[in-house]
């Protein structure tokens, strides 16, 4: 199939040109990410308020998190952003094998993150770090820290799982040839993936490094 035909197949209503359509996909994702910033920003602001209200309890609680798991996960996720960027650029350049390999690596890193996170959650539960009766720490405000720990990492994991799901679907479609590499979806996925990564860049110091200096 010629290049022009491939490009026409990727063009959808109501767009007049593929370049415009690509712009539109990126633009739409950027707006959506603005919305996501406010979503996480709301929780981070609430966290900041409590942290300034109860600095000692929050520092003591942050020391209970497992910094090894946290650091390994940070490394995994940052590396996945590299492969995701390569996949998106590869798709834009029409390099099929590079795109597929990098997408697969991205999915693998993402799943690796979730697996490590699962072990970490298990350890947190056995260490009684779930807020409520029998909580490990004495200061009641430390429970608020762990409320945010569970909530923020949980919401982040949901976002990451969404990203893994979309990356898997796009990878399969590209492998079968039912989605053209020229499709703007790869760039859109890349933007979303980097955002989820960026959220973790905020969560890691707030949840793992606090109280450890």
């Amino acid at each position, binding site marked *: 199939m010629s290049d022009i035909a491939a490009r026409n197949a990727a063009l959808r*209503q*109501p767009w007049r040109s593929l370049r415009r359509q690509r712009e539109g996909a990126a633009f*739409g994702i950027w707006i*959506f990410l603005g919305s996501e910033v406010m979503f996480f*920003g709301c929780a981070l602001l609430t966290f900041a308020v409590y942290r300034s209200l109860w600095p000692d309890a929050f520092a003591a609680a942050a020391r209970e998190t497992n910094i090894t798991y946290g650091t390994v996960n940070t490394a995994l996720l940052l590396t996945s952003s590299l492969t995701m960027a390569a996949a998106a650029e590869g798709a834009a350049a029409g390099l099929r094998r590079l795109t597929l390999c990098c997408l697969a690596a991205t999915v693998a890193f993402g799943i690796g993150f979730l697996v490590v996170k699962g072990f970490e959650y298990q350890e947190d539960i056995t260490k009684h770090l779930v807020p409520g009766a029998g909580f490990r720490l004495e200061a009641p405000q430390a429970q608020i820290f762990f409320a945010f720990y569970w*909530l923020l990492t949980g919401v982040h994991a949901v976002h990451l799982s969404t990203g893994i799901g979309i990356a898997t679907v796009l990878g399969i479609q590209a492998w079968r040839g039912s989605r053209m590499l020229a499709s703007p979806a790869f760039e859109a996925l890349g933007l979303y993936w980097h955002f989820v990564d960026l959220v973790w860049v905020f969560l890691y110091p707030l949840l793992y490094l606090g109280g450890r200096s």
Partner: protein
Amino acid sequence: MSGITAERAIPGAPPREPSYLTAKTGLASWLLTTDHKRIALLYMAAITVFFFVGGAGAVAIRIELFTPQADLLSADAYNRAFTFHGVIMVWFFLIPSIPNILGNFLLPLMIGAKDLAFPRLNLASWYIFMAAGGLAVYTLLSGGVDTGWTFYTPLTTAFSNGNVLAAAAAVFVSGFSTIATAVNFIATVHLQRAPGLTWFRLPLFVWAIYATSIVMVLATPVLAMVLALIFAERAFGIPIFDPLRGGDPILFQHLFWFYSHPAVYIMVLPSFGVISELVTCYARRRVFGYNFMVYAILWISLVGFLVWGHHMFVSGQSLFASLAFSLLSFIVAVPSAIKVFNWTATLYRGQIVFDAPMIYALGFIGLFTIGGLTGLFLASVPVDIHVTDTYFVVAHFHYIMVGGAVSALYGGLAFWWPKITGRLYPEGWARFAAIMMFFGFGFTFFPMFIMGYLGMPRRYHVYPEEFQVWHVLASAGAVILAFAYLLPMGFFAWSLIWGRRAPANPWGATGLEWQTSSPPPEENFHTPPVVEQGPYNYHPEHAGPPALEREQHQPQGRQP
């Protein structure tokens, strides 16, 4: 006074070609459509249902308040009734109404596009909306919520007996739909405008929907997170706002109102857009101060984010915070006033036709002015402390949301009905309904200002006998108001079959949506439009008077 309806309608049926309504048939062609016009109609059907559901709550409230004693509802049932009324009306009627019905239908037409930027996302957002609506109905069937639509903690997290989780989930899910639609609108306005349609040639309705969408994108996620926090605290017992473990319930109020005050502008900004279209068309005048109208919309949507604290003057926040929020609330009133003045100035020396949409528009301007000015009373700390949580507040926000937004919705529906359906509504009945809505509204809600000022608190199902006369007046007015809401539904439905066929431009209006046939073809325009002039070019000066045969007045603008 037969109006322009009769004079403009072309006698005899014009040659019919397949419109978006007739191009495809069958249930699947509707439920799987990606045509923004059909999706708008899907929204119209769903939102009408929710209007009835939320209205049922209002009926229960008004019947209960007819007498000072509790005779229809228990205290608990009354709590559930007003909460349900609030939740449904805010998130399932007011917020989606104008953007998702008129905005969805008109935005691509007004900017000369074939469709919204992401047609499939548009359909998905309708299904998400329906899922959220299903959750809301489930909330009602499973016993309802008794917290008030504001979901204040620690009532919601620790004490409420209602189904808070389902209600929070319903509102949370509806937020996805809102954000999806808003992203779509913003991308469409940026990327799909017709050649020559520069930003400052956009109709004000497009500007209003655009600004509303920005507020939606930035405010709705905050509500989503705060609902998630409540959900987590109530369902899993993790303490976020629990005062026993160092949590701060006031923080919830800050986060909630950070969303919910901008949400007021989500509800009323689209109405501004509709009214600007109606006033210009029926006064046959260019809008006065177009640029300032645009700046006012943007100004409102920006400063609207900075005034949330005026809901919390008695919450115990610092006096300094109260003063700052009070000042900012006065500042946000300035652009609203600019809009009212500019609409009024647009009428000056116009050739006003009192057709139904214009009556709705004039009603809007009056009611919105009262609602806005009483908002200034409430923005002033001493007055607010006196009337906090009284019927004064109830009256104020109903003036904005019901008197304002619903008047604009009905006016807009009448105005664009020929474009949507290809049929003309019966003008006489519509005028009657518009006038009745204005008076019914006044009878229902003006007494609330008085009894609120006298100290009648909101959210009580029993009250001292001295307030009964006002409550009876309000309940009687609500009957008129209900009739004014139902009557248009009747004659709109009637017009679908017996209404006269509408020509492409029955009102002689400017705007790209009137340049295509009524109803438009599936691809919106037979030939892609090119724009060469600004909006509202009634009486173009270079053409000299009269631009249209019936306009015998002198041209607007500076005399040579």
